[in-house]
């Protein structure tokens, strides 16, 4: 947590965190896989900007490196990899919708309110109710919940991968504001780890198509009991 940021810095952080939350809600409001992908890329760029801003105002020069790598990996390489998977599949949107986009946005809004209540309570423990920490915690928790919502109500393999990445983005965003001094090594390895995860998913999706004949988790119901 940056000690006493200037008002300008605080508002910049707030703006960027809220922007990334907004993009997460956009993902809930669509059922086109391409839109999820664009939203995810945009979210990663916002997070990269946030890393750079925190690095600048908080005097953590190593965060510039993180920002550059976030932009490269989360903003470009991961979306490219996922775009390649989408291109190979015959599916370009969610077909069986459990929760209509409008309804899932409402549920998402409820999640944000819940996350805010928890964040205020937690930040209150450190007497930080009036700082950007509340916002960071809110966004971190609500992106977590939104990610789980996407995992639960979306069935296409791509939506599920992106749901997982939203979960990770939420945590990553929170760490930039709450614990910018977290050891560089760990952040680097986590970034790298994400790349490996998506590569694994790519291979697995290909297997799913050839061996299970589907990429929708609705069809995966052989194993029960």
């Amino acid at each position, binding site marked *: *947590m940056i000690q006493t940021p200037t008002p300008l810095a605080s508002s910049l952080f707030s703006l960027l965190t809220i922007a990334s939350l907004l993009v997460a809600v956009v993902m809930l409001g669509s059922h086109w896989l391409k839109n999820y992908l664009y939203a995810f890329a945009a979210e990663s760029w916002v997070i990269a900007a946030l890393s750079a801003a925190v690095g600048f105002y908080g005097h953590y020069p190593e965060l510039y490196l993180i920002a550059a790598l976030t932009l490269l990996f989360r903003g470009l390489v991961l979306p490219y990899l996922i775009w390649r998977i989408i291109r190979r599949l015959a599916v370009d949107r969610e077909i069986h919708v459990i929760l209509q986009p409008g309804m899932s946005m409402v549920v998402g809004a409820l999640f944000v309110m819940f996350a805010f209540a928890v964040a205020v*309570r*937690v930040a209150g*423990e*450190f007497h930080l109710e009036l700082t950007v920490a509340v916002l960071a915690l809110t966004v*971190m928790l609500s992106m*977590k919940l939104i*990610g*789980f919502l996407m*995992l639960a109500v979306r069935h296409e*393999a791509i939506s*599920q991968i992106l*749901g*997982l990445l939203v*979960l*990770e983005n*939420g*945590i990553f965003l*929170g*760490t930039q504001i*709450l*614990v*910018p*001094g*977290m*050891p560089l*090594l*760990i952040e680097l*390895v*986590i970034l790298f*780890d994400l790349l*490996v*995860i998506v590569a*694994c*998913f790519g*291979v*697995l999706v290909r*297997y*799913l198509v050839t*061996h*299970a*004949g589907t990429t929708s*988790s609705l069809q*995966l119901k*052989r*194993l029960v*009991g």
Partner: protein
Amino acid sequence: MTGNLLLALTLAPLLAAIGCLAVRRARLAEAINLLAGVVSLAAALPLPFLAGAKPELFLDDYVILDRAAAWVILCTAIVYFLASTYAVGYMRLLKEEERLPRFYALFAAFGFTTLVGPLMNSVGIYWIAIELTTLVSTFLVAFEREAESMEAAWKYIMVVSAGISLALLGTVLFYWAGTFVLGPSYQMTWGVLAAAAPRMNPVVLTLAFLLVLIGYGTKVGLAPMHSWLPDAHSESPAPVSAMLSGALLNTAMVGIVRFLGVTGAAGLGPLPQLALVVFGVLSLAIGALFIVRQQGIKRLMAYSSIEHMGVVALGFGFGGPLGVAGALYHMLNHSLNKSLMFFGAGTVMRAYGTKEIRQIDGVLRRFPAQGALWLAGAVAITGAPPFGLFLSEFTIMRAGMTPSFSWAVYAMAVLLIVIFIGFINHFRAMYYRPTAEEVVEESRASAWCAVPMALAFVPLLVFGLWWPAGMWDYLTSVTQSLSLGVP
């Protein structure tokens, strides 16, 4: 000395993984992986004797060897060795010769990640080690390339990745709580965290612990986060099932136990332990329900793993020297016994060409030696004397006989009896159900498959009859070193 052993322990499977990819010959890959298994086991056996009461640190404090880690690594190395031996016999039955080198490369890499996990001293890097175990083992689960194994692999990676992202959130919150005590930048090791814990904010610590518990609990297979486990365990090749059950679950349990130690040092009161106890009882209940009505032979073993992880969770949740010693001992017993069970299930499954319990009968006539071992293993895994699991479960029950947890002990006793009846009833059907055709030819299973079953069985029986005093002291001393005292 200890450093060199650790090096041998971890480098052997890592080099084997690279070697298997390089040689591209099935027989050679088999031998390389088996050699790595032997080297790891040889390096792991002396570790508990060398691990002192004070943890030893290596590589700029990134690697820790304490008594808990040494013990879990021993369990893992045993399973890795046994499964590598069994794989030689079993994988040849699959007729996938050209893909075998890749299988063994992944298998050795899986062994590497499970051996490395408990040694990680940095909390963040431990998380990454656990994530890596998932990525490697997903492809082992998917190895048979059938629709079912694909489904299992997909569910496995989705559920577990989503689950342990909660553990990452919990880890970040732990770090955040620490920044108010230690300043914005510090190395988050288990020791540093435990030392700073008494001055950290209890509300945030509790929240962080619950997140971590759910996160790593997914990986351990505690109910209700267990949904990936029966699928992954039942659809992967038998040696992989044994590794998943006997090695991976323990590796993830170490994380929960270390975090429990941190909350113990912080003096958070009974909530963290109570949470673990509740998950333990739930796991036993889910295990019991699904074991009684189970139809698939490997799913039966998988639900039994959930049950036993529940028992281990109960042991750590009850805490105190008895609970911790019982739980650690139960880990070893479960690793040995579940390997034996999955090996037997694999052999039977291949011989009868089915996973359905209904279609298997007269096992003892077809496999006199292995069948007898498997049946004895079934008796052992339900916690009947004179095997090790009886002792460890009994110790855990004694640990729980406190006013706050006695309800859990009664629940555990009832559920264990239900599981005993259900489990043994399935075996009665497979062994002694009257069959129409009386002429059954005796199947010849290879020694590669039979020997590891016998090797797993001997220590189960020996340690069930004789619990050395040194081992008892060793296991109880973990209680102090991880500050897992009585609530």
